[in-house]
């Protein structure tokens, strides 16, 4: 910090000199620019005001399982931004779902026309295993989405930053972050619907009991008997609903990365108790034995990395009489870049840098086969400007892939 501060204070004459902290407040843009493009004479490297290199992330740490009343919890610190995530599992009985009897796929044992058709198409689908798998996955996702089985909410009204009034309804930022987490959970299919289902396998009934069963459940008596039939009698009695609550305890920029890492770590930590349908009580009952509880089997490990673009002269494009198109802009850029750089892509912007960058990029990547396979871009969001083009996006994806390795290591250690 000290040498950087010296460069900031150098150009001003002694009588008007300001301490760096005040210069940073009064002229934030010039302050960051002075750090990123120091005068050639000073022989200083281009470095951000917080001492990081442009593509360097803040020190990240994670800690899981410290909250008592949760099924899974995590605290993630990303520099000075802290997110606490707690996952609570509650039970949604299918009898409470208004549309359940209509929307559920008819049990294979019944002889409704729809099911007959399904049965007819089944053999054709069998040879191609892949399409079958896809169908199954579609059903998976629709259960999670249709019945709102994942309920993420992010709260900023914890006094995390001066701008957010506690007690007020969630700000636009909090709402948008909650929604981004939800849509990312849905689109990555991180949580498998199968983990959230609570099945009930009716016992292999004698004929008279089957009749009694039939009265209550409207089952067809012509159900195929035997083991295969019993297997197909299995029905979903309830779902686990995961309430994923993220409290941003301290906010110093880049809340999404911190919140998503906390959600990821908490879900990895989540244990669901063994649950079964208790016929006598007519409710789902769980076992409290830790040995019987199981962890969620998450699909993949999507890691999010955010970037901000800092421009030396953001309005130059707008001030031009003819707004340059992308090609001209790049040519202009290259020619001017010989002298000095005009824009910087800053990884993991802190609160100060966030206030100075219009353009944001968020990349969520995953790697196949636990890091050995190729990198998959799960989500790519870019808004606020035109500085980042296809070439730079590719570089950002590479940085994000490196970041994926770091986060994986951090999550596996905690």
């Amino acid at each position: 910090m000290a040498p950087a501060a010296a460069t900031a204070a150098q150009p001003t004459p002694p009588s008007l000199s300001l301490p760096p902290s005040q210069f940073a407040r009064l002229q934030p843009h010039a302050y960051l620019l002075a750090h990123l493009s120091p005068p050639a004479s000073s022989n200083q490297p281009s470095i951000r005001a917080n001492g990081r290199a442009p593509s360097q992330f803040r020190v990240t740490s994670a800690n899981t399982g410290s909250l008592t009343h949760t099924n899974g919890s995590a605290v993630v610190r990303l520099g000075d931004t802290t997110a606490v995530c707690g996952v609570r599992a509650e039970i949604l009985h299918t009898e409470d779902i208004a549309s359940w009897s209509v929307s559920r796929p008819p049990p294979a044992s019944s002889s409704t026309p729809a099911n007959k058709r399904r049965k007819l198409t089944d053999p054709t689908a069998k040879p191609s295993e892949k399409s079958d798998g896809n169908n199954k996955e579609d059903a998976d996702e629709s259960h999670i989405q249709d019945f709102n089985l994942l309920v993420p909410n992010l709260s900023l009204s914890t006094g995390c930053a001066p701008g957010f009034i506690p007690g007020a309804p969630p700000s636009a930022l909090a709402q948008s972050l909650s929604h981004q987490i939800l849509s990312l959970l849905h689109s990555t299919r991180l949580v498998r619907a199968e983990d959230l289902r609570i099945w009930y396998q009716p016992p292999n009934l004698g004929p008279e009991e089957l009749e009694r069963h039939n009265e209550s459940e409207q089952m067809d008596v012509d159900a195929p008997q035997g083991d295969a039939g019993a297997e197909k009698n299995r029905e979903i009695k309830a779902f686990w609903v995961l309430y994923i609550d993220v409290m941003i305890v301290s906010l110093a920029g880049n809340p999404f990365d911190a919140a998503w890492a906390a959600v990821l770590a908490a879900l990895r930590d989540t244990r669901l108790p063994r649950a079964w349908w208790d016929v006598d009580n007519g409710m789902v009952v769980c076992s409290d034995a830790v040995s019987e509880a199981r962890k969620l089997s998450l699909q993949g490990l999507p890691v999010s990395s955010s970037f901000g673009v800092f421009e030396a002269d953001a309005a130059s494009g707008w001030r031009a009489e003819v707004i340059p198109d992308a090609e001209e802009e790049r040519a202009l850029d290259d020619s001017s870049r010989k002298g000095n750089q005009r824009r910087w892509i800053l990884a993991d912007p802190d609160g100060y840098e966030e206030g100075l960058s219009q353009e944001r990029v968020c990349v969520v990547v995953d790697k196949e086969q636990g890091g050995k396979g190729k990198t998959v871009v799960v989500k790519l969001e870019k808004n606020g400007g035109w500085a980042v083009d296809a070439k730079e996006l590719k570089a950002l994806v590479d940085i994000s892939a490196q970041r994926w390795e770091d986060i994986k290591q951090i999550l596996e250690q905690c």
Partner: protein
Amino acid sequence: MTDRRRINGPPSGTRPAVFASSLNSASDIATGRPQRQRQPNELRKIFLKTGLIPSASGSAYLEYEPSASLAAARSSPKSLIPPSSALKLACTVHGPKPLPRSATFSPNLVLTTHIKYAPFAARKRKGHIRDASERDLGVHLETALRGVIVAERWPKSGLDITITILEAEDDRWWGDAPDSHDAPWGMMNVLAGCITAASAAISDARIDCLDLIAGGVAAIVADESEDGEAKPKLMLDTDPAEHKAILSACVVAYMPSRDEITEIWLKGDSSKALLGPDDKRSGHEALLDGAVDAARGAHSVLAEAVRESAERFAGLAPGGGATQ
């Protein structure tokens, strides 16, 4: 009426998990009640650290030491039902800042306190919107702090104190049905923690105070001894999960150097306490003295945390850095 600004769960609502062991007869689980391992006048250890939230003017994080049963359950987990819980909370102070133009003139600092439980803080899921008990806690905290802050030094300014409770104390042991002695006893421990943490955060924000104020809890508990007889006894810093019946409890906010109490919250019937034979105090006097003793204990932790905060500040201040 659904909350349109949040993501709501299934419209029909969900039910918390019911564990098979809690459906069994009470005799099976009666053995599982956590036992108090501390002496009646021994407090739990408090972890208190200031300055963890740099975006705030002042901040503090407070955590109680987990009880022996909880620590055992964490190190070798057998049951998914936690035996008890330990308080964890984060406190931030923003200000002093100018009041909005629309506010009426105030010659003093306007103090706003805000306490919110995280949805996962308690055994039962909490809502996102503050309920009456949280507002009540906020009012108690404000009363406790108003007597400490030298409010005349900041006319026309406001001070926001926000506390997020990440893990609350239980009101009773989970295996107990609510009974006649039942009251939200856990709230009293939470309030004591809030007072101590808020005091640390206010000092961290360098707001002038008369003294550091600490919260303390004492309770009269009637635990059954071996001969099956319940003898009401005075205990300090009670964890409600460890006691079968708490007859009454008291929280105080106490300033040791002035020997002044700014807030008392006493609940329950304190007349049944069996004190020593030569003790002439009435039940509630004993309870208050106990709570003050507990607050003195918390004060020593608080003083240490504030000293750390001051050292950090001295290191940051211009000129102070040169000495290091």
